[in-house]
């Protein structure tokens, strides 16, 4: 399939009527390839802690139960429930609070039936997400040209 995509792209480039269009397409595609390389390798501020196995298990459970439908991480997700990015480091919430919520079936939240081990995995996942940054980013700096300088956690 990759071959097919590649071949068709080449074909498209050669099909183009004018030299000008050919040039634009070649420039765009080349930039795209380089850009992808940078996005795939240089996105995160180093060092971003590596997700542990337990956290990945928690993330998997998060996906299988589609917690995203109602909760957000970094503001991404549905809005029926609260954002969970920094819930673990929140002084009035934290891991025991999270565990208490999981099987509570409170409000619209479905009544789940997670084992103690699964609850641990959720907490681990949320704890490791928490370490990657702030949301909402209260200490961000607004700049006069419309830019926002985020406050990072990893290089504090």
């Amino acid at each position, binding site marked *: *399939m990759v071959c*097919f*995509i590649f071949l*068709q792209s080449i*074909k*498209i480039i050669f*099909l183009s*009527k004018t030299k000008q*269009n050919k040039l*634009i397409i070649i420039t*765009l595609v080349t*930039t*795209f390839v380089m*850009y992808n390389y940078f*996005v*795939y390798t*240089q*996105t*995160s*501020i180093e060092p*971003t802690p*590596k*997700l542990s196995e337990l956290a*990945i298990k928690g993330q*998997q459970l998060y*996906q*299988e*139960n*589609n917690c*995203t*439908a*109602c909760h957000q*991480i*970094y*503001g*991404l997700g*549905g*809005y*029926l*429930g609260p954002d969970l990015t920094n819930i673990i480091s929140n002084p009035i919430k934290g891991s025991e609070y999270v565990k208490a919520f999981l099987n509570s079936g409170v*409000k*619209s939240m*479905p009544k789940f039936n997670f084992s103690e081990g699964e609850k641990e995995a959720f907490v681990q996942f949320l704890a*490791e997400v928490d370490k*990657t*940054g*702030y*949301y*909402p*980013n*209260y200490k*961000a700096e*607004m700049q006069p040209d*419309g*830019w*926002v*300088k*985020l406050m990072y*956690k*990893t290089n504090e």
Partner: protein
Amino acid sequence: MNKTIPFLFLICAVLALLVGSTFGALASFQYIFPEFLKELIPFNKIRPLHVSSVIGWVVLAATGGIYYYLTETLKLSIFSKKLMVVHFTVFMLVALAIYISYFTGKMGGREYMEFLPILTLPILFGWFLFGINYFKTVVKKITNWPVYLWMWGTGIIFMMYHLSEAHFWFIPYFRENFIRDISVQWKSYGSFVGSWNMLVYGTSIFVMAKIKHDDNIGRGKKAFFFYFLGLANLMFGWAHHTYIIPTQPWIRYVAYAISMTEWVVLYSIIIDWKRSLSKQSVERNHFSYRFLLATDFWVLINLFMALLISIPYLNFFTHGTHITVAHSMGTTVGINTTILLSSLFFILNQHQSKLINKTVKSINVGYWLFNVSLFIFLTTLMLAGAKRSSWMYNEMSATPFSSFHESLFPIITTFIIAGLGILVGLLLVCLPLLKGFIVEVCPPNPPEGRA
């Protein structure tokens, strides 16, 4: 035979739109009645049912339209009817599997593709078949490609790439680094939407050119400028979704610079087209034309909004609020859906203009109900978003989530009523379409019975 498969695509598209909007309406009730349907279809199932169905609408309507236009309007002979049939069958089986996946709660994918991730493979296979059929049908058959052929081809290729990219999380290299993972995830979504926009905007240019009987619309310098700008946006413009994620700043700088310029060009193309349209061809394509006029209006509204929220300073406050939803629904419902409805009316008008003429009144009511309700719908989302933002940045520590959520009830009630208005409006518009296409696929009498 030639028309049957495209029409089956379109019938399923309309059904997906109606079913998807119904799920949407049911889902919205859960905002004020948290216990409503909670046991039967909780929100974590009904939301993906809604989203996947309406994505199905966009994809199927665009695909069916492209097959139809290639074979019936451009009179090309399709490379392989068999592939087209297999493509349709694969998509239908996948759709069934996706619904089963949601209803039984056997999910596991990420947001917007929550179904069992393995189902992505047959979806990719379907796009692959479409790609082969498309390129084998048009390459070398048409010289000097008009822009819509470019756009459709580009849409298909990038769709496959970004659908795959949305599943890079299977690769440990991505998954282990949460920031990298979530950024690539949202990169793929942005570009994925860009890819289907290529299919949909290509369709809008095609329909405009045909209504006006002027193929120059798709060939001018301006049209190509727009195409390249759209392509650049597809490739690099995704990161406004992730301004708030602590990535390297350069990614966000690039997104800020690219921004959402593509609307401007589309808008100017439509304006040009409208100015020079003769009255006769408008009347013949009444609803097709009217829906493109609606597109015009929604492009303007969304352009304004999109430009505002891609300024990082404003995005900082609107991100993570319903204003984002207003933006995404404004574009998918206001722009994509009106273009595709215009395309469907254009197609049906070639075969069943009498049937459309008989139902002009109810379609007209549906048209206005849809547009007015959508306006109220988006306004309520903006208000809810503004309130949420104010809560997040001013009172989150003092007001618990549940009290904030309850304070939204009056706005959400209006939102639900407007949503029902959209649903009823769509029903009035879509039922004649559905009926027309069904009559075409299985005529009640032998064909000579049709006058």
